[in-house]
């Protein structure tokens, strides 16, 4: 599995982006999508945990925390300005 060009893990804090694809393993991808991270969804990284991992996302008007490793396999479109 090659890394997507632009992943959620590289999105600067506070910047909005749109999910393009979820490249995680099946179980995790399924769960991430069920939680609302389907392609086309607006997402934002709002915070990083004090020890550098995990991240806090803002998606569909709620806060979801995932590990950097999982954020890495979420491909996003160019950030929205």
């Amino acid at each position, binding site marked *: 599995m090659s890394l997507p060009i632009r992943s959620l893990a590289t999105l600067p804090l506070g910047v909005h982006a749109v999910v393009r694809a979820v490249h995680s393993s099946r179980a995790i991808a399924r769960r991430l999508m069920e939680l609302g991270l389907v392609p086309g969804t607006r997402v934002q990284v709002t915070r990083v945990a*004090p020890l550098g991992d995990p991240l806090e996302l803002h998606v569909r008007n709620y806060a979801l925390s995932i*590990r950097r490793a999982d954020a890495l396999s979420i491909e996003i479109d160019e950030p929205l300005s």
Partner: protein
Amino acid sequence: MTAASGAVAPAEPERARVPAAARAVVLVAGNPNSGKSTLFNALTGSDVKVSNYPGVTVTRTTAVVELDGIGPVDLVDLPGTYSLTARSQDEQVAVDAVLGRAGMRPDAVLIVADATALGRALYLAGEIIDTGARVVIALNMVDEARAQRLAIDEARLATDLGVPVVPIVARARQGLDQLRQALADALNTPTQVPRTVTLPPLAERDVASLAAVVRRELPGLGHATRAWTTWALLSIDDAPPDELVSVPAAVRTAAHQIRRAAMRDGRNLDLEIIGARYERVDRMVSQAVRPPDRPAPRWTDRIDAVLTHRVAGILVFGAVMLALFQALFSWSEPAIALIERLVALAQGGVSAVLPAGPLRDLLVDGVIAGVGNVIVFVPQIALLFLFIGVMEDAGYLARVAFVIDRVMGAVGLHGKSFVPMLSGFSCAVPAVMATRTLENRTDRLLTMMVLPLMSCSARLPIYVLIIATVFGPAARIGGFISAGAVALFAMYALSVTAALTAAAVLRRTVLTGPRPTLLLELPPYRWPVASVLARTTWRQVRSFLVDAGTIILALTIVMWALLNFPKHSDPGADVGAQVRASVAGRIGHLMEPALEPLGLDWRVGIGILGAFSAREVFVSTLGIVFDISDADETNQPLREKLGAAAKADGTRLFTPASGLALMVFFVLACQCMSTVAVVRRESGSWRWPLFMFGYQTVLAYVSALVVYQVGKALGFGA
């Protein structure tokens, strides 16, 4: 346990009691944190029945609610979930209940939806509506939605979904009358063929071909066939074995083939199904919800700026955990002391009225001691769950996991494992129960398996006694550091290292499975509600008393019998002589060849056996074996006697090497039947507690062996 008929419902006296079997069953489903428990408590009386789904550890809470024109109805609380997809037996239980395969087709499903996270809630609602069940949606937390300036058009939502939507504030008990009415109305209408979501054409074709197999294999599903088929396509894993039960092999095979064919064509069936559902959700949300023109200030963000701050966040985290620690260690102390005094009082009372003999001994040392062994845990369990309850309801528990996940994740644990592990320093029994906050079964089992390695407070007296015996207050390392202090510190360090290492090893060997991860919702901060807290805490205590308590009581009686039978040939023999002649004494002798390489002898063996009923018993058992009555760890004669004790070959029994070996044994061994009992209860079978006991015993023995032999070689064996 009486059936739900014992529940106190405000029944009108003239209405005939409807027998339980004929009562309608309403399932309560919803996302975690949607306010399900709050609503459940608000709708039902105080008498709630907590049991397990047959065969699994998912707790099932049932209560009776009275509906106008219908009469009493059984309300069944399902575990909070984001979807119906199941990856384990436990989760499948909830799914089967909704789909009507658990021998219990629901008459209706009450879905609790968080109005502020409507999209996610409607995803689950869509899955449930598709099953053809009668559905009522309780749109909860409309107060928070209002505060966020979200305008929600419930009527529009109800039309689009085809089910009634009732706005409520569960916490303030607003909207409950309308909700009850909507439920009663729903129960009075016939079920209809569900308006299911339309999938992309190719996915529709896949579902249709699997549905043909499902209809053949599971003819009873009726309206729910399509929903069940979609469920199977999403849930059945590509790489068996998954834990899903009662999925016919033909369905499995067909699902695999369909998925494989789709993959070959470059399609992602999961995405097609989930995507189509979210498309429908997005359409509905965009029509029914008007987002605020300017965002309302969010308290949660401001609080999080401190509580998850790089520096302040960690300081607060440390302070809160310290408080938890302090509560478990000190605040529970007076209550525990009181319980112990009452047990002693009861024992004294029975001893005074009954004539000496086996019956009196059974009652005093078996039954009453056993009951004492059970209720002595209640203060710590209650405190821990109260603490966890406050943190959970306030929203801080999720932040604890957020802050510490990096550390726990490094050894394959979950951020939410932290609080149970920390509680393990106090006592493994409540700590094992605290793993209930972990949703994922593998994460939960892993935490349970390593938790007993955390050095609990009951081990402390043992360390204190042995350290005092073998090192003495004057022993110094490097001239000024007390050797005893170093030894004590080393035991705690060993305990933490062992627990984390064991987690890492077990995760790679026994508890493998999909790559562990963290998908954690961070709910907004809220004020906890005292009445809900009191009730949930009581439920935890009660489930401990009923389920684990009975096992602990039985094991205490068994231990008592082992230590007291057969009777010494001389009825006037003192306790020490009796114990030495008992089964336990003989087992102690039999253990001697195994204990000898650790530098220990059979007398310590009896102590280790006795400690199984409760570790602190080790000290008093040693006291009995060495003929000192009422010994505690600070007892000077006991220390002197132990210090002077010689083995059969005349050498000293307790040397720095053998003392350390014994302490290491106690750090690592699962020397506690209450822990075994509670793991049995929480894991649902004897397999896991026996595995835990086995690996810890081997680990403890081998480590103690190494410590003694190395210590002896270095000259500390005399």
